[in-house]
């Protein structure tokens, strides 16, 4: 009797969250190591290999320095997310959006996700200003970074921890 999970409805939620990564999920096997899936992993519909956030940052930005965004960018993220399935992110910035100087890319990165890059959004000066929102998935409590890449190559980073409350009954 004791082996029956007490909160097996929550186990289901954890299982669901595990699917897109999350630290501390020891059961996850890095996809790239699995024979047979490595080739398929290059296909669009296949999950890409696991990555540490340092690898993600290096892959995306090489050795270029990340500057603290400070008041250049305002990001709204919940401090505590009731579930990792839907975490609203809203990004506003007063960085210029002119033909000769604009924010070229916005990266949303969840450090502890299996594969940290949530999304990259490429903009043009036609956006007029930087104001973007979307909903991301988080595998568990993690730092979330929003990095703005300007047309002149500067990288401005906002970073905040979002705690995901997985656990407890009901909900």
């Amino acid at each position, binding site marked *: *009797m*004791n*082996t*029956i*999970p*007490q*909160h*097996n*409805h*929550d*186990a*289901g*939620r954890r*299982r*669901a969250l595990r699917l897109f990564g999350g630290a501390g999920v020891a059961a996850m096997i890095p996809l790239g190591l699995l024979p047979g899936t490595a080739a398929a992993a290059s296909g669009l519909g296949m999950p890409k290999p696991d990555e540490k956030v340092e690898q993600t940052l290096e892959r995306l930005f090489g050795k270029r320095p990340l500057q603290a965004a400070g008041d250049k960018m305002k990001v*709204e993220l*919940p*401090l*505590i*997310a*009731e*579930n990792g*399935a*839907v*975490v*609203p992110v*809203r990004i506003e910035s007063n960085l210029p959006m002119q033909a000769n100087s604009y924010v070229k890319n916005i990266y949303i990165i969840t450090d502890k996700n299996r594969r940290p890059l949530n999304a990259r959004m490429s903009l043009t000066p036609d956006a007029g200003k930087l104001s973007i929102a979307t909903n991301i998935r988080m595998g568990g*409590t993690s730092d979330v970074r929003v990095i703005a890449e300007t047309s002149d190559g500067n990288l401005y980073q906002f970073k905040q921890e979002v*705690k995901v*409350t*997985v*656990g*407890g*009954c*009901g*909900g």
Partner: protein
Amino acid sequence: MKEWIRQRLSRHGRLAPAVLGVAFLAACATVGVGVTSSEWKTNAIPQSQGIVKEVDGKRIQQRYPYGGFGTVNFEKWPTFAANSPAYFPPKKGEMPKDVKGDPKKGQALMKNASKGPCTACHLIPDATVWPAGNVGPDLRTSGSRGVPDEIFYQIIYDPRVIYGPDTPMAPFGASGMWTPEEIVHAVAYIQSLKGNPPGVAEEVSKDPDWNPYTRKVVRPAYGDPLDPIANPGLGQAESLAVPRWSKTGPKGQSCANCHGPIAAPDAKRSIGVITSMVGVGAQYPKWMPQHKRMMSIEDFLAVHAPETTGDAMPSQGDENLSMSILVKMQSNGMPYNIALDDRNVQAAIARGEEMFSRRVGQRGQACANCHTARGGGRKFLGGRFLADIEEDAMVNHPYWRTAWQRLIDIRIRFQWCMTPLRTNMLPGDAPEYADLETFIIAKQTRRGDKVEVPRLSH
């Protein structure tokens, strides 16, 4: 020791609402004795029917395939069915003398999700616990109070013996969820918690969110529930309910034939306006004499749609949920308005009140344990901030559940609570669930809470 028990009892002991409910029910026994789930032929979708069957030599309860409902069969434990036997009475435990408690083992057990976890309700000085809850007492200085081991043992074995019948805590030992040896380890751990300095609760984490007593209640900004971009439930409801409204069934009738067309949306009714339905949803659940039971919009549609159009609309199905939203939405902004002066409704409220405090499942816990100030109301159960039936809007169903990305009604919500209670669920359209819903919506009617569907929430 006796003095200590007396203090605890005077702090917590009071007449259980169940007793009042039963007395009221007895007074009303001449009216509103409706059908129960044993007589009612369910109109719910198969996953909602609570079917118990044998699969690969094992009895399971068939439940929803999403969300983690699981299929564990709890049929030997009490349910919310009207004819269900009562939970076993408080039981005295006998602390094993030949087991030496190991605080380390106790700590691990108390954090183990399959054992509760204790930390969903009690704070312990362990920074790795996340998210800790505060439904029950803070245990960080429990070992400094000179409480005998036997008392702690009894509290875990069956707390009703110490705190009285309406304690929110489950009888973990008497129900078989914890072995006597495991309880001894937990007691050893609890006794080791002296505080630092002794008697003073230790903040082992600098993070104010670690401590549920200082954690802020944060609601992520999912957006305006009546905005179809923010709330995908509106899109689903529209895509299923609007065509169905004007669809002519085998009996040659459509909803629109009798109830009129759907006009252009307005701010409160963002799927469309149906003039004849304005205010109707706010009156449910309703006593239906022809069916001898209370019925929600969802229950009624499952009967009414096939009766009139010839097309089924099983409850808890997507079409039923969507149509319920379309109908209920016509009352958005209007106060809940169920017929509190109807004696049949009053009887249902009394039955619902009894159910609200009825101990069910292996855990032997009741709705009231989590959703009243006496229990977990407005406290953290792990990371979940629990609603209090006296203060919070617990209705406004169906709603879009962001965690599952789907619409659910209050019955799926009830059924969802059944798994952690370790009790089998009833069919979604069970008359008993209608009574429980009536009890809740009666509170909302008295408070003047307003209808707003579909809500958008975790």
